[in-house]
């Protein structure tokens, strides 16, 4: 059994304001990451080097935003000594911010790996790598937007699905990634090209993990249940 009081209705109005500000900042950071993924998707679709460069450079503001939100969280902890749902919210927000930063990193790394001059990324079984990755990024973005929406709305049921236990979409993506990886290993490509592709796939896999983690944090912030490191269906490798 649990209780979750939405931010607001504190006796101290400033506390409410701070909590809203925290939510806004996390959501903003989420939006920045989503923008990056969208850009990467566009870059892949149009083979646009310029876009890809924007993605690589676009990681920096996300890092700065992480620092900003972190500072804010530390201030909140010091000032308000939060407990109960507030404490969970802030702790979850702090963790989510870390996940977001990592997600941003992965996106930038994928852009860097996919758009380098020397070693192009090969496809597999005639399927061009860019096209495959683009559809996977699209899928990841969709999941990511869902989890951020769950965070915004304290929707722990949707987060439960995303966290992987019965997340068909997460499982579907997971499966595609595995298939692709097997395909790359089996195709006997040039090592450097294969490695690059594998790196991108790994990044996508980690991205999916981050999204799942965010979903777990959302569950924690709403219910107080720590569902990490449980036996999570097939999604956990």
């Amino acid at each position: 059994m649990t209780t979750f009081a939405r931010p607001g209705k504190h006796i101290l109005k400033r506390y409410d304001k701070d909590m809203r500000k925290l939510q806004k900042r996390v959501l903003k950071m989420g939006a920045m990451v989503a923008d990056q993924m969208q850009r990467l998707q566009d870059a892949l679709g149009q083979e646009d080097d310029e876009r890809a460069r924007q993605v690589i450079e676009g990681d920096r503001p996300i890092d700065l935003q992480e620092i900003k939100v972190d500072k804010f969280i530390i201030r909140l902890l010091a000032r308000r000594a939060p407990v109960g749902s507030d404490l969970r919210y802030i702790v979850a927000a702090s963790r989510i911010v870390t996940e977001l930063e990592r997600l941003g990193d992965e996106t930038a790394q994928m852009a860097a790996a996919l758009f380098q001059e020397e070693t192009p990324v090969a496809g597999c079984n005639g399927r061009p790598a860019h096209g495959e990755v683009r559809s996977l990024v699209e899928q990841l973005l969709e999941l990511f937007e869902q989890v951020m929406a769950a965070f915004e709305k304290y929707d722990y049921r949707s987060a439960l699905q995303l966290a992987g236990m019965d997340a068909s979409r997460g499982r579907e993506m997971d499966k595609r990634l595995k298939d692709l990886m097997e395909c790359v290993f089996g195709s006997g490509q040039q090592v450097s090209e294969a490695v690059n592709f594998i790196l991108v796939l790994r990044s996508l896999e980690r991205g999916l993990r981050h999204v799942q983690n965010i979903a777990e944090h959302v569950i924690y912030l709403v219910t107080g249940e720590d569902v990490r490191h449980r036996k999570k269906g097939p999604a956990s490798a």
Partner: protein
Amino acid sequence: MSVIDAGIRPDGARDARETDATVGKPFLEKKVTLRARNVNVFYGEKQALFDVSIDIGKHEVTAFIGPSGCGKSTFLRCFNRMNDTIDSCRVRGEILLDDEDIHDPKMDVVPLRARVGMVFQKPNPFPKSIYENIAYGPRLHGLVSGKSELDALVEKSLSRAGLWNEVKERLDEPGTGLSGGQQQRLCIARAIAINPEVILMDEPCSALDPIATARVEELIDELRRKYTIVMVTHSMQQAARVSQRTAYFHLGRLIEVDKTDRIFTNPSHELTEAYITGRFG
């Protein structure tokens, strides 16, 4: 029980038992010092406590929190029948100290209070010397037979209260001349001089500055090894810092009692949540 496993929706629909009774774990399986069952307290016509049932674990610090007037101090004072001193106060129900009902008419309050010591909100050393303050209880109950025995007991009590080094040079000075924090530790030393089983503390730090508070909290944590401690506090942080179990009272009812960690991260009842997070309850 896990939320997820139970599949209970967190949006307000609640387990049936919490609407009229305590949530959390009022009763313990392990060693219990005090058992309260269906305690009701009245001040004249006014009812101050409604059907409170709780177990106080042995060698644990149990903290009572709740808004002013919620009955937590009243409840605390039931444990050594200090409510007897208030003429209009009536207590119904059962409170067992090691299976003896302390509200039994045959129960004498004098030995009861020797077993259940109490420390008050404002330090209240007697207007006597430090030594006499500590010696008061042992003399009263005839626990020592000689001066040297008494000296030893005084030293032991003061040491245990962490005050010996500060006052050993001036045992003859009046206890009222100490600082607030020292006075409170003197009162704790006075209480433990008769080696009670339980020490009740009624907001023991509310009149102290943060440093003195820290000292007393440190002391409470140490005392836990030998004594069962029940404390009322207005500071949730303090409850979170020093107690192992926390009980939340609201308008004379025990709303929730649980492990302190759980109360402060994930309380079960929305009133508790609203109170600890500082929302309108």
